[in-house]
């Protein structure tokens, strides 16, 4: 078999392209301020929650959640469970079917890559996350 035949070269280049497309299609950093909440998700077999600050900031000021609903200003500092949410606490203060959509839409919140630890994405004070900055 002639290793350097045109056919083989084409094969190899096609392989490389396919591989590269597969590997490198995820790129870019997530939206700044997204909070990954993974208190209990991994243990229960659910994807961790990604809370997008930007989406909520357009609609509500900081006070509505951080003073009125009792959310602490610290990632991982709030013991949020699904039982509390359906009972109207924390996220359930709005995500109850009246102000915003309700708990049966699991996927929209639980959309993180499994295993991501609780963190504020893009947090410039924590090592290991933001080498780029």
């Amino acid at each position: 078999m002639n290793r350097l035949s045109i056919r083989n070269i084409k094969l190899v280049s096609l392989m490389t392209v396919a591989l590269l497309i597969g590997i490198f299609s995820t790129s870019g950093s997530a939206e700044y301020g997204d909070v990954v909440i993974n208190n209990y998700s991994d243990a229960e077999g659910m994807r961790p929650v990604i809370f997008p600050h930007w989406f909520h900031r357009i609609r509500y000021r900081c006070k509505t959640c951080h003073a009125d609903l009792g959310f602490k200003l610290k990632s991982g500092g709030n013991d949020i469970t699904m039982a509390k949410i359906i009972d109207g606490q924390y996220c359930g203060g709005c995500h109850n079917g009246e102000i915003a959509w309700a708990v049966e839409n699991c996927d929209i919140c639980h959309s993180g890559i499994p295993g991501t630890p609780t963190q504020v994405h893009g947090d410039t004070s924590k090592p290991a996350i933001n080498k780029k900055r």
Partner: protein
Amino acid sequence: MKKSYTILLLTMLMGINSFVVKAETSNEASNKGVSNVNSFNRLLKKESKTNPPPMEDGIHDADNPGTALLQAPATAFETLDKSKHGNHINWVSSLDAAKIAPRWDRSDPTIQPIVFDLNIIREVKGSMPNVIYPHKAHTEWLDCSNCHPDIFIPQKGANQISMASIMLGEKCGVCHGTVAFPVTTSTCSLCHTQSKGNVQLPRSQASNSQ
């Protein structure tokens, strides 16, 4: 020959697998706003990687069906004032220009925030300009209890703030660096706004005797 074909098949499957899942579920919205297709890219600059849509942003799981339903930030940010830091949106000016109208109260959209207009000038060591802290911009968003007294004691001389503490996530760093514009070498002048000129500031006797 057979061997190379099977290897090719494998790699293509790997590639296509992730590619197809994204292609199937990606929609117009997730591609809008990242580039203007009609602009002439003479300098062949790479497309901006800021505000990527959830399917491509590195922390959302692209295999999750729910991720495809999420709005891409770029779509929502189209009408807002831009900036070079954090979310790449100037939230304060967008609010002032009424481009967004976030509620102060969950249920009542008419209640307005209690804005307090007081600037605190913190003198800074060395040649860096002094910091001017504007209550006005912050009280448009935050409740007094968010900062006082847990993070800042509302009294002169009661809070020692250094760049180190900010970068460690304390004091101003509780928000700036996590959800508000980050503290990086390009954001210095957003806080350090009052240049000192050639004024020789008085010091205590201890430093005067150096």
